[in-house]
């Protein structure tokens, strides 16, 4: 269990929210909601619409495409934004590898959230650029 203050403290240590001041972090902690998944539970489901944007507070999750594990997400990592930005269902399952705590915001709320927090949007872009670069390196 975590209070808004405790979640804000955790978020302050994550790159994605690294540019926010305390009142903004508290606001973010109030806009997002804490959720828990036991080991083996699916957080994102390949092909199912309407999913949210998640940030991992504690624990890890595997990214699984058509039954094959592609990568692992850890504390501070985020997921779900690609399908929300593109308006398409997720192309992977994300499955908890153990007890997993996340914060989540609904898909339809993401655009307004990013517009209200341009620094978070910039950090998200950086992370996406890094993922794209690494994917290109891997291919070449």
């Amino acid at each position, binding site marked *: 269990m975590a209070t808004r203050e405790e979640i804000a403290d955790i978020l302050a240590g994550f790159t994605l929210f690294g540019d926010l001041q305390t*009142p903004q972090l508290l*606001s973010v902690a109030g806009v997002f909601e804490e959720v828990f998944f036991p080991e083996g539970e699916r957080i994102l489901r390949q092909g199912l619409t*309407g999913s*949210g944007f998640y940030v991992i507070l504690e624990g890890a999750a595997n990214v699984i495409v058509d039954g094959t594990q592609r990568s692992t997400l850890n504390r501070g990592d985020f997921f779900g934004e690609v399908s929300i930005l593109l308006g398409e269902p997720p192309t992977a399952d994300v499955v908890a590898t153990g007890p997993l705590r996340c914060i989540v*915001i609904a*898909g339809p709320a993401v655009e307004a959230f990013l517009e209200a927090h341009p620094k978070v949007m910039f950090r998200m872009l950086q992370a996406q650029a890094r993922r794209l670069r690494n994917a290109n390196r891997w291919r070449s």
Partner: protein
Amino acid sequence: MSSDPRPFPPGEYPAIVIGSGPGGLQASYGLRRHGIAHAVLSADPSPGGMFRRWPFFQRLLSWTKPYAPEERTSREYQRFDWNSLIADEPELRSLQAGLMDGTSYFPSRPEMEANLAAFADRAGIAIRYGCTWQRTRREEGTGGTTFVLETTDGEYRTRALVLAVGVAQPWSPQKTPGIEHARHYADTREASSYAGKRVFIIGKQNSGFELASGLAPWASQIVLSSPSPAKLSVQTRSLVGVRARYVQPFEDNFLGLGVSLLDASTDGIVHAGDAYRVDLKRTDNGMPMSVEADEVIAATGFTCPLQDLPDLGVTTVGRSMLPAVTPMWESVSVPGIFFAGTITQAAHGLRKHGIPANSGAVHGHRYNGLILTRHIAETRFGVETPRPAVPEGDVLGYLLREATCAPELWHQKAYLARVVSVSPREGIRDEGILPLVHALDAMDRDLIAMTVEADGQGSIYPVVYIKKDGRTEEHALPGHPMRDFATAEHRGAAAAAIGSLLPSYARGG
């Protein structure tokens, strides 16, 4: 020999329900329906749970329409009645509608309490009142875990514990300096005692806006503050956010008339002469500001009173301390402990498009309670419940009728589903109403699950899930302006979806 007339003296029971609010009553009714002997214990002196006290201003947020397009005792009528508990017997159905005085279609608190008391009385739900659960132990034996409950009346033992203790324990942020100067919502005084006072309310959720609405005739100034902007249900097009009943303070704020809504964090509350000064930091620019007030009220929410269960290993989530549960509302970390009533909101389902289930309210959790007790009866007591065969030619019409009329699907959108299983050995079976996530993840057979869903933009439409060979496909059907999902267009779209499991529909059957 005891002269205590109350039922359920201390001892061992196959199952124990704690709580006599709507969740406890529905759970007891459900267990009895499946023949499961159980005790019901309650710390209260009478049924009703939180509705014995709240809402503070004595008017519910959930409505019941005494006059609706459906017969009052029909299953379909439940869509228009958010407050009655569910029963097989016609004389126990839709009790709320008969207990309203016509001044509002939102029952008053006493009308709701009377509805729950009438259900307990007419259904003959036996409850041991005045029995407070204090501590819990677990004993491991050859047959599994036994839970030992220490209560004010003595020790109770059971292997199936159903907790329906609500989410109504007042909570305020203890780390905020000076928070002791703030009364919690739960301790708000009678409204007239705020006459002429400047009232500062911490929190911009429904309880804060309920107070702002109710104190408006008395307070000279009302400020509501919290770090995040308030959401309105009419904006989220769901029950998320401040409900339409409490929108008036928004209008007053926009007109600059006596109500101010602030987005700010509370740094502290200090004495300032005969009043208080609330020190804040604005969310938008981080700048400090202060507001003077004669009264500070913390409308900062409630937690789930799980007592010592976290020490026993029950994992909790979030500020409300809700238990982490399976889709069937069983603790993920301590099997054998189940949750009923408003705590069932802890099983969040898919939350598609950000729309949660309505399990926090009676019109959602009453169905969860019946599913839960069937699940307990089957998995813990070996009770077999009917799974009627469905003729293949009837499947399509049945599912579309459910999408159009089933109260479970309408009140628990994208959360509860009508599930029909398909197997070579057992044929086509009606599995009943089940949590969608349970059907998709825990049932190891091919199936069709029908839900009603909303996209958060205002559309409501049925969705057919096909699970075949372990893979799930989602087929959203069209919406309809009058919410009639049994049209030719829907028949065509649904037939195309279920054709992969039932080939006769793919051939145009």
